[in-house]
């Protein structure tokens, strides 16, 4: 067992344990921190799967952007009493069988196939250069559409969240 395999198994175990921890904890803030651990471990797995650019994007966008947004959301929607925002588990008698059944189904489906023996390195060197050229040549339409989608969604989110209105007052900025 070489060092890369050891790191891979470690990341895999930590990601799985942190994900199960999200299911168990009742404090929403702890759940957000556990999600951060899962996302960083997934970024490490991306690095080991020769997808460095996706790993960096994962860290920048998820760990840097979405997690901060979620933590802001938690702070803005908890009451001012100083107590942490707790969440109750309802419908667990539906959720556990549904999730467990889905997991067994997916694992059966995945392990029924036979795959090539192991993950291999990409043939030629600089992946990031190839990604950049391909993004500007083969994927230019999805790239532009994604840019417009981001612009529209972020303006919409800003406007949706910015009209703060007290009860009984008119809408104002």
């Amino acid at each position: 067992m070489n060092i890369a395999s050891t790191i891979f198994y470690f990341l895999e175990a930590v990601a799985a344990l942190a994900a199960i921890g999200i299911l168990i904890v009742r404090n929403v803030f702890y759940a957000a921190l556990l999600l951060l651990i899962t996302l960083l471990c997934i970024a490490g797995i991306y690095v080991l799967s020769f997808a460095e650019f996706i790993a960096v994007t994962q860290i920048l966008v998820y760990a840097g952007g979405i997690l901060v947004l979620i933590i802001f959301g938690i702070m803005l929607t908890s009451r001012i009493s100083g107590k942490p925002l707790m969440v109750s588990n309802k419908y667990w008698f539906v959720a556990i069988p549904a999730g467990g059944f889905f997991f067994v189904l997916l694992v059966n489906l995945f392990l029924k196939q036979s795959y090539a023996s192991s993950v291999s390195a990409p043939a030629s060197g600089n992946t990031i250069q190839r990604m950049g050229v391909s993004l500007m040549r083969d994927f230019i339409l999805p790239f532009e559409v994604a840019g417009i989608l981001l612009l529209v969604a972020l303006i919409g989110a800003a406007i949706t969240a910015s009209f703060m209105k007290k009860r009984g007052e008119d809408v104002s900025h």
Partner: protein
Amino acid sequence: MFPIEHVLVLSALLFSVGLMIVIMKRNAIMILLGVELMLNASNLNLVAFNTFHPGSLDGQFFALFVIIVAVCEAAVGLAIVLRAYQHYNTSAPDQITELKD
């Protein structure tokens, strides 16, 4: 190095846990968190299967666009959660029942 089955089983686990969170937790932010987990599980599969085709990067591009759409979803979803919280004083989706009968 490592067999791909490990990545596939990990992504299946993450997707199932995300599904359980979406069904089980009674808070809109936790539901968004579960959706993020499910999107990450699908990304993991895309990147893992892309290693079978070292000459092409299509799986990684698909993962990249999934991340972009996830950002939009998180931003708009959290804005809606904030507005609903200001209006109803709760962030539990079960208690927002104005349209119910």
